[in-house]
């Protein structure tokens, strides 16, 4: 199973559905996700998340999944600003720091490697 699929399955069902709806996944990933999590996905597809709810769920959950969502352009414009704000209310760790750097770079319109050694 692909790592991104595994992480998505572990996320809250409404977040999984919203990511699917926003077209975050490549066709093979989507097929794998729907195969392995069919029932839950179908059930939650009817529930839509509003922008702030969506970024709040991203901010409190798996930082690596959220990073992937930002890099794949699923979070845009004002949602990025809210995500940046919500992340400051969470406890800091290295993965979350990396997510914050990704968000900051996305807000500046840049992408790519955001690791920092010092």
């Amino acid at each position, binding site marked *: 199973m692909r790592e991104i699929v595994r992480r998505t399955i572990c996320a809250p069902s409404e977040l999984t559905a919203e990511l699917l709806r926003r077209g975050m996944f490549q066709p093979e990933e989507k097929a794998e996700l729907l195969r392995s999590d069919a029932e839950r996905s179908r059930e939650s597809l009817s529930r839509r998340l509003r922008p702030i*709810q969506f970024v709040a769920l991203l901010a409190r959950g798996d930082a690596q999944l959220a990073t992937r969502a930002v890099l794949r352009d699923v979070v845009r414009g004002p949602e990025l600003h809210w995500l940046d704000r919500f992340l400051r*209310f969470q406890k*800091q760790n290295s993965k979350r720091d990396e997510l914050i750097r990704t968000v900051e770079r996305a807000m500046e319109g840049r992408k790519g490697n955001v690791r*920092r050694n010092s």
Partner: protein
Amino acid sequence: MSAETVEAPGNVLINPVIKNLTALAARAWAKRWMITFTAPTGIGKTTAVDYAARILPFDHRVIQCKQITTRYTLLRDLGLAPGEKWTNHGRNWMRASDLYDRAVERIRERPYLLMVDEADRLSMDCFEIVRDFWDDARLPMLLVGNEVLTEKLNRQHERLFRRIRVRFDQRPLREADQRKVLEFMGYQMTDEEFALLWKLVGGSPGFAEALLENANEIAASKGVKRGIEALEGAVRYFPTCRKVV
């Protein structure tokens, strides 16, 4: 940077955070001191820095730190003239040390107050550069950040820590001030809603705003007006305050 008195902007409510930060900025400038201003996230530090940047009647610069701020960002902000680009190749390439010397020279010629917002996000080498600016140019500074700033300075930057003359720790807003700020921001609440918010986040308008915005969306998705249920529903998005409910 501003040299002349600017009128106080009308869209800011002058609360104790803004009063204290502005007073400390004036003090740092008058005495040529290095001062730290720390407060928990969401209290309104950035709003206070924005306000101070608009009204301080002496030369000042503001650096908004990010997680991606490096020593090169700092040097670029302090060493280059507005609109100038850092040429790092070709005949006129500038080394980081050239830029540093240029910044020091400028500060000596025409000093200003440097306000560093979110200073807790600065990395080790950035703190070293800040200390160098203090040692070489006696640059007055106001470092603004959350409690991590004090911790970082205590643990990792003893030499910088010793140069700080005032360490101000801002308390969260009082209940009445918090309500005033939230109402000023346009949030109308019942007493019951405010009591729950106060229990959850205390005197932190930023945190309260995050909860209220979430509650608004929850209520809107159900087609109802925001109430206590929506507010309780919003708490699940913020694990750090969930234990109170």
